[in-house]
């Protein structure tokens, strides 16, 4: 017991807050593991996410979510005084949600007198994936509601090699799901419907270099639904087959372009089994390794924010109060990566 207490005293422990969109989460992470991750999810009564309502949800649930995380770790002997820093997602995300979370993070940091660390949400998805899967220097396919990007690390930053030219894949799926009258989140319901068909209906497949476009696909899928209303499953199947093949092709292009033999999948849409299967096949065929973290780290979670906060803290990378404002358009390539060193880069 004495020894355990000693370890708690010297180990770095960070509390992380995530709430860029519909999931609010608080997690405590140590250098060795995720200790606890508490969450509360905003569910729209109808339609998609309403930013203000989501922010109100976060504000009213914040106290409960943070307390649950702190209570859980207290049982293992970790008290407030053992927490070294407060990390929060600074962006990208919905403005009102980001501001709610940042306000809570500032309050905690000031009252506990410990450093504040603003974390880029996208980088957090990447780094938790590398940590949990042991990927070293992968090409990353990051797919969520608003984001669809292919990235790779080079010379101090995660570079965006390709991304959507219009809407994110998750939003494209959600839009189509709403058109079919499915409730939010539409992804799993589309996946389920798709699994009932193997009848491919041609839909537009749009790639420009390593960039992608999904809005045309979304519209074409809606039109196909209007002309064949009975064949919902076929259209869901074709939608997934087309969109995911585009994502897989772009990932493969990026791997070829940067000579990488690892691919890491990140972000909520990554939970889709068909997408995982396609990426796995592509990697197998080119002799590359494919990594996908557990589902709880694919969706938005506080653990990833706490984890990146922890590695930033260990590298002296903290956020002064006057620079702690949120940025709804925070890009991954805006972040100067302080924690990855001496890594080779081949073009």
């Amino acid at each position, binding site marked *: 017991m004495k020894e355990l207490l000693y370890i708690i005293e010297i180990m770095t422990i960070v509390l992380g807050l995530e709430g860029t969109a519909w999931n609010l989460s608080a997690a405590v992470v140590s250098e060795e593991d995720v200790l606890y991750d508490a969450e509360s999810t905003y569910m729209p009564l109808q339609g998609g996410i309403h930013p203000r309502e989501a922010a109100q949800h976060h504000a009213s649930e914040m106290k409960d979510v943070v307390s649950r995380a702190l209570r859980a770790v207290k049982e293992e002997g970790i008290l407030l005084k053992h927490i070294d820093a407060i990390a929060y997602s*600074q*962006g990208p995300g919905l403005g009102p949600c980001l*501001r709610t979370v*940042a*306000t809570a993070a*500032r*309050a905690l*940091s*000031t*009252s506990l007198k410990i450093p504040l660390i603003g974390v880029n949400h996208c980088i957090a998805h990447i780094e938790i994936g590398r940590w949990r899967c042991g990927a070293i220097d992968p090409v990353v396919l990051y797919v969520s509601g608003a*984001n669809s990007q292919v990235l*790779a690390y*080079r*010379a101090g930053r995660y*570079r*965006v*090699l*390709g*991304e*959507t*030219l*219009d*809407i*994110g894949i998750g939003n494209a799926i959600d839009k189509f799901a709403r058109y079919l009258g499915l409730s939010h989140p539409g992804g799993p319901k589309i996946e389920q419907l798709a699994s009932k068909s193997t009848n*491919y209906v*041609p839909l537009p*497949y749009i*790639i*420009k*270099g*390593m*960039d992608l476009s999904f809005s045309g696909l979304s519209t074409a899928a809606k039109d196909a639904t209007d002309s064949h209303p009975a064949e919902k499953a076929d259209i869901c199947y074709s939608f997934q*087959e087309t969109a995911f*093949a585009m994502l*897989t*092709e772009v990932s*493969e*292009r990026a*791997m*070829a*372009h*940067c000579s990488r033999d690892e691919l890491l999948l990140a972000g909520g849409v990554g939970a889709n089994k068909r997408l995982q*299967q*396609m*990426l796995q*096949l*592509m990697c197998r*065929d*080119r002799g590359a390794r494919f990594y996908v973290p557990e589902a709880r780290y694919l969706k938005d979670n506080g653990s990833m924010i706490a984890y990146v906060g922890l590695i930033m803290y260990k590298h002296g990378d903290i956020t002064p*109060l*006057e*620079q702690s*404002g949120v*940025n*709804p*358009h925070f*890009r991954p*390539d*805006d972040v100067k990566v302080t924690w990855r060193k001496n890594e080779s880069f081949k*073009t």
Partner: protein
Amino acid sequence: MIIQCAEAIVELNGDLVYKRRIEKRYRVKELDTRIRKERTKSEAKLISEARRKGVPTPIIFDVQDHELVMERIEGDLAREVIDVAISERIGELVGILHRNSIIHGDLTTSNIIVGHDKIIYFIDFGLAFIESNVETKGVDVHVFFQSLRGTHESHDHLKESFVKGYKRSFPTAAAQVLKRVAEIERRGRYARQSKTESAKVTAQ
């Protein structure tokens, strides 16, 4: 020698290059066949069209369903040897393509060869198409800039010299296209704010 590219197997055999678009098991068969056929056919057409307009490309000798046979170019990938002079010449050649409404569709430094004869060749027209509007040209240039940003240290200088060459060969619309490139970068997914919103709330 056999090279595995992202979507094709390229076999270098004597003076010839065989580019075979391989089956992708991850894609549903119907979609896969459609894409491979379309791209092979249109690549052959546009690679020849580009050369007729004055942009060096390999000569095509044969076209099959999923296979092209073409001339072998001896040289280095621009990715390995690019400098400001080469980037300027690339800009000039892209200007010629765009002046003729040819959109390359995958302008990266891996798809440009600097020949041992010092001539710059464009390869891989698999995603190329004909289109005359400013938007597609803007996206084409944006894709090139992104490839510079993604893989080259001195991308700002390379970008500058590209612009110089592009303006020279495409004086009628270069300014308009470059303005659109800046717009594309500012758009939704590319939004880049100069700094984060100032902290409006100070903690109690």
